[in-house]
């Protein structure tokens, strides 16, 4: 978190020094700050901050792809006259422990159509998910853990 605060501080320093108070200049200052911090990264100690932008970008692109693909699938389901769904409520054991990670995971699952998180057990070990296409519950559980939870862990590490 510390490099992030430094980065914001540097962006504001840039804005004050160049005395151009616009959003573009603040963003540019942020980029400059990032490059500067990258140059002195040895002084910041152990941090995953510099990998974060790429991880976050990959994450956003993955979510966009997932939302689009799943929306098309559900759209097809809505438009075809027969119901081909095999819904089920399944329990997904959680490896993530922090509130932020669980919230992010549950929101990701809800945003991708076909799955909708319903509740988390009070010991925060199990997430209950309603899914529309369950051919094989174990496979779905595994794919949720592999595709989504792994990415959340990577992002919030």
């Amino acid at each position: 978190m510390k490099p992030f605060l430094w980065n914001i501080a540097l962006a504001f320093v840039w804005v004050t020094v160049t005395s151009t108070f616009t959003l573009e200049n603040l963003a540019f200052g942020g980029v400059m700050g990032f490059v500067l911090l990258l140059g002195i990264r040895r002084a910041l100690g152990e941090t995953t901050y510099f990998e974060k932008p790429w991880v976050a970008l990959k994450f956003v692109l993955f979510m966009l792809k997932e939302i689009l693909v799943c929306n098309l699938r559900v759209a097809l389901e809505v438009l075809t006259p027969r119901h081909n769904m095999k819904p089920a409520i399944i329990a997904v054991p959680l490896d993530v422990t922090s509130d932020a990670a669980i919230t992010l995971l549950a929101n990701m699952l809800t945003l991708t159509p076909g799955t909708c998180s319903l509740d988390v057990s009070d010991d925060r070990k199990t997430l209950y998910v309603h899914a529309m296409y369950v051919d094989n519950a174990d496979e779905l559980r595994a794919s949720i853990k592999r595709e989504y939870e792994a990415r959340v862990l990577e992002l919030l590490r």
Partner: protein
Amino acid sequence: MSPHEIIALVLAGVGCVFTLLGAIGVFRMPDVFMRMSTSAKASTLGVTSLVLASAVFHAELSLTVRALFVVCFVFMTVPVASHLIGRAAYVSGAKLWPRTGEDALKGKYDRNTRVLRGDSVRMPKSGS
């Protein structure tokens, strides 16, 4: 038409189509959970494309930033809302579609307190 107008038109069209599909989904799906699944997400994508269409059409920085914020807020609030509606529906006993497979939540809620106990800290049953 200039290129950004065409992009805006395509985005607006996609947005309208998905919003409409979400509305049809509410009618067509057999139970409350699947209605939520189709409507909430289709409308997320619909609203996102419509807002982005207006951002692309006007191509102003202040408007684009606001549009991106709208998208962020939609993405943060819609899942929470549908999560809560789904939980409320389950707790209040909404019927699942008969062809629903496994129901992992069955019998997991405490009938009086509505607390969802985890397996690892299952309290010893007192009384009954």
